[in-house]
């Protein structure tokens, strides 16, 4: 039927919307809820048009109360629904942290497996839009600390289109972090694109000189850096983690076993971060594969600044990734 090679020009935002529309169509238990998701069409315009298409039972605007509507989503999931809850940005999700960490993440375990919470929470993350500190932080690494929830970070059109349904089918809570700079990402997507695996990291570019590990909003910058490195004779392998919890370490370590050098690119702060966790696991599981210390390109440890030049300086950029990668392969005389 469908020509496998047929593609459509689309954006990350449209791919997310297509995923929502697909989920709402596939299963009547699915509904979307959050601040301004209905009449306004979503703060980032992801759910634009869905209210008219599916009605206000299934696309629900909520009060400005993260704890309230995330808790409602957990309750709905406990009672057999498949809720998709949108939290405007991860910065505001901290108001719902009690619901997420103390309820969503624990109830399966505390009930001896009697309760499932097939909930998906979507939230925007990351800096770069001059929205200042209270709208620009990256907390996915924090959430990845919590057992009982799965953390996914779509970084491509395919994953924006495909991760939602797979996440809804997971019987446990899944939080999807959408880097806000990606919403306008434009490209070709297979016309028949559908659900994708959310267990595995993916090698987005193959190379043998070093491994660049990243995810989400930093993937594009890291691929651009790999391009610059290639021009200088350094072949970087780029891994998109895709899922931050549980981490797909076999893919990461498999690449390291080939390249023996690694740089981790993570917009989050270094201290106690996801990048730190990956380094720790490399030490535990692959110490003898290392030919150089693992290096990190992370967010500078300040609240994300408002001025454009300072904001850019505070998060990973192509030049910084290239410089760190060159230092890491610097032992090659």
């Amino acid at each position, binding site marked *: 039927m469908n020509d496998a090679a047929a593609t459509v020009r689309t954006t990350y935002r449209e791919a997310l919307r297509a995923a929502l529309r697909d989920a709402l169509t596939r299963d009547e238990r699915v509904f979307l809820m959050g601040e301004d998701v209905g009449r306004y069409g979503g703060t980032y315009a992801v759910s634009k048009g869905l209210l008219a298409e599916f009605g206000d039972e299934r696309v629900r605007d909520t009060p400005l109360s993260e704890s309230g509507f995330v808790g409602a989503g957990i309750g709905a999931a406990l009672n057999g629904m498949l809720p998709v809850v949108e939290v405007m940005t991860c910065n505001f999700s901290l108001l719902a942290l009690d619901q997420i960490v103390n309820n969503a993440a624990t109830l399966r375990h505390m009930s001896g497996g009697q309760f499932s919470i097939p909930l998906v929470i979507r939230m925007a993350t990351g800096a770069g839009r001059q929205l200042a500190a209270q709208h620009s932080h990256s907390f996915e690494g924090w959430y990845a600390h919590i057992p009982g929830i799965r953390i996914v970070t779509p970084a491509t059109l395919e994953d924006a289109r495909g991760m939602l349904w797979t996440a809804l089918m997971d019987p446990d809570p899944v939080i999807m972090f959408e880097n806000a700079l990606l919403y306008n990402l434009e490209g070709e997507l297979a016309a028949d694109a559908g659900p994708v695996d959310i267990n595995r990291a993916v090698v987005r570019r193959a190379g043998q000189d070093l491994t660049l590990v990243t995810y989400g909003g930093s993937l594009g910058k890291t691929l651009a850096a790999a391009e610059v490195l290639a021009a200088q004779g350094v072949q970087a392998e780029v891994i998109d983690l895709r899922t931050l919890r549980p981490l797909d370490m076999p893919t990461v370590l498999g690449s390291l076993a080939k390249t023996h050098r690694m740089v981790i690119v993570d917009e989050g702060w270094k201290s106690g971060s996801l990048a730190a966790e990956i380094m720790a696991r490399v030490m535990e599981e692959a*110490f*003898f594969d*290392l030919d*150089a210390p693992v290096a990190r390109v992370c967010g500078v440890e300040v609240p994300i600044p408002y001025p454009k030049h300072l904001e850019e300086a505070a998060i990973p950029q192509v030049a910084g990734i290239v410089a760190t990668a060159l230092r890491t392969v*610097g*032992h090659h005389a």
Partner: protein
Amino acid sequence: MEAGTLVEWRIKPGDAVTRGQVVAVVETQKGAIDVEIWDSGIVDRLVARPGAKIPVGEVLALLRGDGKTAAPPATTPSAIAPTAVTAPVPSAAQSAADRQKISPSARRLAQELGVDLATVQAQTADGVISRADIERAAATAKPAAVAPAAGDWRAQMRKAIAAAMARAKREIPHYYLATDIDVTPLLAWLAAENAKRSVVERLLPAVPLMKAVALALREVPELNGFWIDGAFRPSSAVHLGMAIAMRGGGLVAPAIHDADRKTCDELMAALRDLITRVRGGRLRSSEMADPTVTLTSLGEQGVAQVFGVIYPPQVAIVGLGRIRERPWVTAGTVAVRQVLTASLAADHRVSDGHRGALFLAALDRLLQAPETLAEKA
């Protein structure tokens, strides 16, 4: 030797090991030696801790047979050499400041490729040795650098030599024989042979001499073996102990195994390898334990003749002096020939001068037909 200090394990529990594999490094009076394992199997448990001084015969590790769960057979260093003789005992830990910076991966690669880290130079300003440096070192196979110097091991080694040689002179009734051998044909053959070879493949004169000594020993088995518990135990294999001087004093005499069965090229490779590792302080336990006879060549130092002292429990030592031009009378005519004085010191409890003389005669005869040495196995 009564005890050794475990320096490091080269295996870990769960590893599959095969007979002859190097499993540990043990520091002895004769230096740091690589201990080989005598059974194949799976490493079940490492009993001895690195740094511990362990009596000979003590259990070092437990093995289980392939795929089985039982864990009895033990690895012990007891098979290491009868008595202490020689060799360096490199002093243990270097201070943190002196410690070479080596990436973990490079360190493991060096182990896998048998590269002596002391010989590797980092190519970059930060001085960290990386995989590329190890690969380069393995490719060029540079000779090893001198083992870490310390006054301590030299004194230890001298003590070990003193003990072994005093025992030899106290217990072994030596008899001595020597003969002059015309090696002109040998040198002519060697020159022709080397002309055909690239520089790296060339043979040293020592190589056909080793081969001839090994073959001659097969003809007189009373010179090849051990005197143990009041009886001679001949050896069917000829493991030629090569006396090799250490830089800065002392010597070791590790074995070249089955020297009589090796071709000249194999002997040359074995000799080069042995000398490299002697100077790098990395010998294997079987090389230290196995020599069935010793060969010592002091010709390079200019001496005409060697009167050897037997290394117990061996029963003979063959000495080679300098090759020099001498007037040589054949059939009533004086000619200038290249002449070598070969000597034998042998244990009179095992053999008599008659047998020793037959050995030197055989050596002479073999050296007159050098072209046959190359092939003979």
